[in-house]
């Protein structure tokens, strides 16, 4: 079988002994701006951990996720994913953007959009096969979207759209998932479904880094938390929240 990946790189195997994610003194600026969106952020994430990114709007949570997924250039410091720089292994990192970043009026069906999660494995010219269809259908059913596969994506409710984006991210079958506020402004049912699915991911040993607003459930749903404020690790704010039993990054450095 031929395989023409979107970036002409050989698939790199994870370097043994390296953490899933290792960020050191990261500095990120948006192109054309001299303002530092992230300034000196460090974070090391072991395999299978669930890490929350916490902070007010504009604190750098989305920027950090975008930098890890290779959407933003690194200006200083380093990011290593299983020992490799961002973008070296696209199939191993899945990114779930905020719902508002997609054109929901675009003429594409629910199932077809979920299928785009398989494209990183297909590469150029190859079309989705039976196995890809099976993976996507199984995910749609797990996220309770089974009957909606043929609908145009704008005909879904906000919560259903969020579940669809998660289905696509999961279709990538990657080891590291970067989720940008997956539970922001969703209905109770969606919240319950997504929480269940994220629990199943932990059982499979997947690593999840998730931006969140929900401070009450930090210790119930996460193993660790990184507090950000104005692009820096916010040490002073950590004491304000109930973070009993979870690891706080940056507090001891």
């Amino acid at each position, binding site marked *: 079988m031929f395989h023409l990946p979107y970036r002409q790189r050989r698939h790199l195997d994870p370097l043994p002994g390296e953490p899933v994610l290792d960020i050191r003194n990261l500095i990120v600026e948006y*192109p*054309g701006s001299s303002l530092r969106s992230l300034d000196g952020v460090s974070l090391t994430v072991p395999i299978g951990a669930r890490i929350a990114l916490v902070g007010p709007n504009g604190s750098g949570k989305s920027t950090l996720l975008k930098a890890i997924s290779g959407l933003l250039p690194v200006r200083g410091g380093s990011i290593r994913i299983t020992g490799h720089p961002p973008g070296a292994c*696209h199939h191993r990192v899945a990114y779930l953007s905020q719902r508002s970043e*997609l054109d929901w009026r675009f*003429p594409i069906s629910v199932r077809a*959009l979920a299928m785009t999660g398989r494209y990183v494995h297909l590469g150029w010219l190859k079309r989705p096969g039976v196995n890809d269809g099976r993976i996507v259908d199984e995910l749609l059913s797990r996220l309770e979207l089974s009957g909606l596969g*043929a609908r145009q994506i*704008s005909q879904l409710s906000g919560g259903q759209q969020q579940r669809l984006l998660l289905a696509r991210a999961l279709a990538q079958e990657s080891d590291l998932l970067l989720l940008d506020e997956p539970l922001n402004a969703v209905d109770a049912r969606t919240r319950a479904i997504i929480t269940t699915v994220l629990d199943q991911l932990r059982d499979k040993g997947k690593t999840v880094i998730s931006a969140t607003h929900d401070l009450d459930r930090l210790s119930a749903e996460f193993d660790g938390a990184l507090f950000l404020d104005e692009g820096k690790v916010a040490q002073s704010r950590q004491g304000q929240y109930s973070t009993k039993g979870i690891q706080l990054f940056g507090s001891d450095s």
Partner: protein
Amino acid sequence: MMHWLVEPFQYRFMQMSLLAAVLVGTTCATLGVYVVIRRMAFIGDALAHTALPGLVVAYLNGWSLFLGAVVAGLLTSIGIGWFSRREGVREDTAIGVLFTGMFAFGILLLSRTRSFRDLTHMLFGNILGVSRSDLWLIGGITALVLLVLTLFHKELELTSCDPVYAEVIGLRTDLIRYALLVLLALTVVTGIQAVGVVLTSALLVTPAAAASLLTNRLPKMMLISTFIAVGSSVVGLYASFYQGVSSGASIVLCSTACFMAAWLIRLGRTTIRPQALTAREHST
């Protein structure tokens, strides 16, 4: 009635014009769907207008007019990308500057030539005047456009719908955009033969816009769009043959009428029978 319909095609030039109408309609309508959903209508119009200096230079030197238009169109696509990359100017500004500059240059060159006659065809189109070599070129471009749209359907769809995710999985969205601009420049050249420099963007935008009112499936949209464009081109052909009116203007007005009809159908669906629409769309 049958006689009235068939009679024109006893002439060789009418057979060739019909073939040209089908090819041009297909190319403009299928690529036009991407022009509409990616909001590239302005750039399509600009590429058509910037073909003018290429046409004039080719005419003055006795080169192929088509080749002149292709070169001018490609130069403009590259120029737009070049001026708008990084922190230069916004893309629509770059288009505005280059498009008017190139068009003015074309008019300047045009004003120095003595004979306007051949070039009015290029300004306003004349599908009846298509030559055998034009036909080969149009056919080649049609084949290329359809081939690229088929082979790279999933990448084109994804980069149009969700460019951020496309970047994350390693797709070069900027390269795909360049490729689309090159296809657009080639397609515009075929449209010029049918409706001329001034009206080409109508053939790119109007049928696709009408189709987008009738369906929300990409392949179906391309099919309806093609149907409208080819139908309009054939109507323009008859109008030109029997009434001696401008084929380009007839083709464009016919697609405009289709757009109005599509708008009314859409209006009827959403206001008169909203329940029927929901039921139908959910069952598909």
